[in-house]
C-alpha cells in the first residue's frame, strides 16, 4: 500500500469515534484505502457505508446517553449516574457534563469503567462501582449549592407526565424515538413497554 494513500482515510474521517465501536476492525480501513476516494467519501460503496455507520452509531449512542441520563445529587452534593453503553463512550459523556457543570464534582460510570472529574478538569479512572466511588469521594467533599437543591420531591416525573396530550397519542413514534434500553437512564415507567396483554386482561 502506498504511504500517501494509506493516510487519507485517517485524515478524512473522525476516527476517534469510529474506533470506539464494538465491532471496529482495522482491516476495513485497508479495504477503503484501495477504493475510489470520491465514492468512499459519498458513502457510495458498501464498506464506506459500514464505516460511516460505525461513527454514526457511536455518536448516536453518546448523544442518546447524554440526553437520557438523569444525574442524581448525593447527600454531600456530588453529581453521579450509572450509564448502560454498548460502545466506549463513558469519557465523552463525562466530558460533556463537565463542560456543562464545571463547578461540580461528577461521577459517571458503566459496568466497564467509572470516571470522576473535578472542577479543575482532572479526570480519574476507577475500578469500583459508581456508588462505592461516590461514597469514597464524599469523605472529603461537600457542595452547599447542590446540597440545598437536593430534595425528596420527584419533580421530573410530575413534569414529564404533565406534558402528555392524549389526543396526540402515538405509540409507534414513541417507541422509535425512545428505545426501551434507555428507559433505565431516566427512571420513569412507560406504558408502551408493558408487554402483551394476557388473555384474562381483556
Amino acid at each position, binding site marked *: 500500500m502506498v504511504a500517501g494513500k494509506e493516510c487519507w482515510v485517517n485524515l478524512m474521517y473522525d476516527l476517534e469515534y469510529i474506533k470506539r465501536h464494538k465491532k471496529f476492525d482495522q482491516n476495513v480501513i485497508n479495504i477503503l484505502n484501495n477504493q475510489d476516494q470520491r465514492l468512499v467519501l*459519498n458513502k457510495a460503496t458498501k464498506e464506506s457505508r459500514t464505516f460511516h455507520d460505525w461513527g454514526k452509531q457511536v455518536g448516536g449512542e453518546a448523544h442518546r446517553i447524554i440526553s437520557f441520563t438523569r444525574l442524581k*445529587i448525593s447527600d454531600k452534593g456530588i453529581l453521579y449516574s450509572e450509564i448502560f453503553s454498548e460502545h466506549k463512550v463513558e469519557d465523552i459523556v463525562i466530558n460533556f457534563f463537565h463542560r456543562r457543570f464545571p463547578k461540580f464534582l461528577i461521577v459517571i460510570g458503566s459496568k466497564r469503567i467509572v470516571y470522576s472529574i473535578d472542577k479543575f478538569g482532572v479526570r480519574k479512572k476507577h475500578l469500583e462501582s459508581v456508588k462505592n466511588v461516590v461514597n469514597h469521594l464524599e469523605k472529603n467533599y461537600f457542595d452547599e449549592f447542590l446540597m440545598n437543591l437536593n430534595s425528596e420531591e420527584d*419533580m421530573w416525573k410530575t413534569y414529564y407526565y*404533565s406534558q402528555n396530550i392524549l389526543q396526540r397519542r402515538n405509540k409507534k413514534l414513541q417507541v422509535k424515538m425512545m428505545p426501551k434500553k434507555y428507559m433505565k437512564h431516566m427512571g420513569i415507567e412507560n406504558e408502551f413497554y408493558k408487554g402483551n396483554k394476557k388473555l384474562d386482561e381483556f
Partner: protein
Amino acid sequence: MNILDKVKILGDAGKYDNCASSASKRKVDVKDGIGNAAKGGLCHSFINGRCVSLYKTLYTNACSFDCKYCENSSCNKRVAKFTPDELAKTFMKLYITNCVEGLFLSSGIVQNPDKTTEEMIQAVNLIRNRYNFHGYIHFKVLPGTSKELIKQASEFSDRLSINLEAPNKNRLNEVSSVKNFKTDILRRQAWIKRMKLPAGQTTQLVVGASDETDLEILKMVDWEYENFDLKRAYYSAFIPVPKTAFENKQKTMLNREHKLYSVDFMLRTYGMELKEFKQIMDDGNLPKEDPKLVLARENFSGPVDINESSYSELIRVPGIGPLSAKKIISLKKSGCKIKKYEELHNIGIVLKRAKQFISVNGCRQRMLGEFNV
C-alpha cells in the same frame, strides 16, 4: 398548594405551546456558571413521540383574555402561580439533574400584560444572575407588552416569540375579542426583530381553530419569513379543550399540520416559492397526499437524469433532500458518475419515492402504462 401541584398544573397548561432548544449562537464562558446551550439542542425525553426538551411552563394559568380555543380561558380550572423564587429553584433542579435543556416561559395574562411580564422577568433575572445559568431561555412575549419590558426580557433570553394564533386580522377576531392583530402582535414582532437575539424569534399558529385555509396560513408565514427574519413557524392542530367556547368544535387532523410543516420546510430550506404550491391547492387547501409528491407529478414530464440535473431540479424530486442533492452535485463536479441505484441508496436517497422520477445511467423505472397488455 405545594410545589409539585404547581409544576403539574402549570406544566399541563403550557403543554400546547411548541418550542425547540436548538440554534442559539450565544457564546459564553461557563467556568463561573452553570449550563450551556448545545448547538443542535437535545431532547431529554419523548412523550407520545414528541420531544420534551425544555422546561415548558406557564408563570400563571390565570388569564383575563378570552381566546376561545385556549385551556386558560376555561372555567372550573385550578389556578396556580409560581413566585419568581419557586420557578427559578424548580428549573435549576431540573436542569442540574439533566432533565431539561433550558427554559420555555410563557404565561396567562393577569390584569395587564406588563404586570405579568414584570414578574416573569424577575424569575428569569434570578435564574441568570443568582444561579449564574448560561443555558437556553425562550421567553414568550405576551400580546400588548410594552417595548421597554420586551427589551429587558431580550437581555436575559436567547429567543423571544409571540404567537400569531391566526393568519390574519379577521381570523383572529373569530377566536379572540381582546387581541389586536396589528398592534398587539405584528408591531411586537417588528420590535423583536430589531433586538437581534442569538436564537431569533419564532411564532405559532393554531391550525383549524378559525376555519382558515392552508393558503392563508402559508401566505402569512411566508410574509413573516421575509419581513421579520422569523427563524421558524410552529403549527399546532386545533384540539377542542373541555369547558372552553370551542369544546364542541371538530378537531383538526394531525395530517394537516404535517403537510404545513412539509411545505414550510420547503419554503424555508429548499428556497422554493409559495406560488409553486398554489397550483396544487384545492380551494386554498393542500392536497391529501404529500405536497412534494403531487408537485413532482405536476411538474416532471419525464424522468430526470440524475447525472445531468441541476440542484434545483434534484431538490424537487421526492426522496431527495438538500443534503443528498448536494452530494450528487459534488460527485458530478469531481467527474464521478452515478451508475447504480444502490449508490443512490447509499448516499441517502429514499429510492421508493424517488425512483419514478429519475433515471440512472439510462435506466429508469417503467410506468404501468408502458406495459403492453
